[in-house]
């Protein structure tokens, strides 16, 4: 038993390196291209700013263009060290600490996602069970996907601010509004995915509508929930950032992006952008993890 298992494991390891090798290679290539681009883009300014008494050779120019204060394109290590500086050298409650900003944006994204998930699933249940809703509401849910909904974000923030809702509430509302569409569409598809034979079997068991829903439709729909949840997560993070733009909010990654834009703080913008991407990737990772564990608990398929 043991040798076969170890052979299997090493075969698995080889397959894993094979699947990891191409993306890692391309990532490394991209980083090299980034450094070259940073040199090319920053070089004119770097030469202008260089100490006229210092060395003027190629290496000096390269080092100068990779360590400018306000570069056209900062290098990855500059962005990372700037982030590290902000996270470790400032207290947690200081607005200069990026962790505080990230937590603020992630909180809005998560609250909104929870809202969108509940609303989206409730609407899908309604559409699946009511002919009237299916005929009249579903076309609007689909049509609303073609409309740039994110454009209303500033208005929602301002309007809700007028009635006294500031801070988390308007942001969560926007994120919830954005994320419930893909979930509704996906879940309607999912609830309808059991075929006639399975539904007939439930009917022969004399199952009630609720039983069909909890024992057949709901479990089957999980295969559709995760892909739409991934779309919703990507929208949620974007929505949380955009919702921070219009009111001149002081905290949040979107506010940092805007402040960086106003004051020409390149590093601030890049830092906010990197952290926002990290939030999105982490959330997608959580969705993947949920999908994976559910798949594992169901013996390998959804």
């Amino acid at each position, binding site marked *: 038993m043991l040798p076969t298992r170890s052979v299997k494991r090493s075969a698995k390891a080889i397959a894993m390196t094979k699947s990891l090798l*191409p993306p890692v290679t391309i990532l490394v290539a991209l980083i090299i291209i980034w450094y070259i681009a940073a040199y090319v883009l920053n070089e004119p300014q770097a030469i202008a700013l260089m100490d006229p008494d210092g060395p003027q050779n190629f290496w000096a120019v390269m080092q100068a263009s990779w360590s400018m204060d306000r570069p056209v394109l900062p290098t990855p290590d500059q962005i990372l060290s700037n982030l590290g500086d902000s996270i470790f050298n400032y207290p947690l409650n200081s607005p200069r600490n990026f962790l505080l900003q990230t937590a603020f944006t992630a909180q809005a994204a998560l609250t909104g996602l929870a809202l969108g998930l509940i609303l989206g699933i409730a609407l899908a249940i309604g559409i699946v069970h009511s002919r009237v809703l299916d005929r009249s509401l579903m076309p609007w849910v689909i049509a609303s996907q*073609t409309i740039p909904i994110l454009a209303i974000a500033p208005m929602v923030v301002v*309007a809700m601010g007028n009635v006294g809702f500031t801070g988390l509430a308007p942001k969560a509302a926007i994120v919830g509004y954005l994320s419930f569409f893909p979930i509704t569409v996906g879940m309607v598809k999912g609830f309808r995915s059991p075929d006639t034979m399975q539904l007939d079997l439930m009917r022969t068991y004399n199952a009630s509508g609720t039983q069909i829903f909890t024992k057949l439709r709901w479990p089957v729909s999980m295969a559709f929930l995760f892909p739409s949840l991934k779309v919703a997560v990507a929208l949620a993070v974007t929505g949380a950032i955009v919702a921070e733009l219009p009111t001149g909010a002081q905290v949040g990654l979107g506010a940092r992006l805007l402040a960086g834009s106003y004051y020409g703080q390149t590093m601030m913008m890049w830092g906010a952008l990197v952290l926002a991407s990290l939030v999105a990737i982490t959330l997608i990772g959580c969705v993947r993890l949920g999908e994976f564990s559910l798949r594992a608990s169901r013996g390998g398929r959804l």
Partner: protein
Amino acid sequence: MTQARITWLGVLVACGLMVATRINISHPFEWFPIALTPLCLLMALYRLAGEKSRAARIASPVLFGLGIIWAWEMLVVGLHVPFILLPPPSAIAVAFYNNLGLLGSDFDQTFLHAVIAGYVIGCGTGFLTALAIDRSAFLQRGLTPLANMFSAMPIVGIAPIAIEWFGFDWPSKAAVVTLMTVFPMLVNTQAGLRESGAMERDLMRSYGASYWHTLIKLRLPAAMPMIFNALKLNSTLALIGAVVAEFFGTPTRGMGFRISTESARMNLDIVWATITVAALAGGISFALIAWGERAVTFWHPSFHKRQTN
């Protein structure tokens, strides 16, 4: 037949009631038609849901939408909802009509310049990249996970950096749109090029067809449904990207600029009028792409006449 006639009569009555209801609720008896309208609407919708004809399928959502607009108008005016919270649809229509020139110039700046330029460059780049890496399995396997990761990222955040690089005018917005649209196109084209079956490819090989022949006669047509998927997805993304990029800075025109400045000045009717323009632009471009899809991929099973269950 008579059943259908009753349904359509109900639809007509509901529409008539919606038009007839006076907004000014001063006389006590005017509550009567206002209370009657939702009842009539619901019954008409319920009956329409039972009809099988094509007209009923179209009438259902239209009537529902009209009902929402009517309820919006009634509630906002009747409950005296403050204008800065939610303007009534009639005010939005008036603002739309009064600001046609302004809205047109915003549309020109945002849609005709930034969106179309960015969309064409982004979709074109994604498509050509997918074709270029088609022959290299290594590049394909490397780029797909990265492209998927990029699609999940909040790419609009790049807007302030794009403004720093390409200036305040529309090219910076086109750059954001390009970056937003390139990855969905790349991923979908790649997936589409894998759509053709092994048997069909073997047949091409037995004909002695070259790589390019197989690509043009078999694999590209088979990829078209996926490519149109990306085109549709990107048409929404492009508009969102351009509008949101304008929140970060723009010359004094553009749909995103209008929305952010006018909501700060509490002119919500103009904001809603701009949103109407955006919705119309999004809807019409989506419809145009869907029409192109029908013309190109008429053979696809999803366009066959479906039986309703």
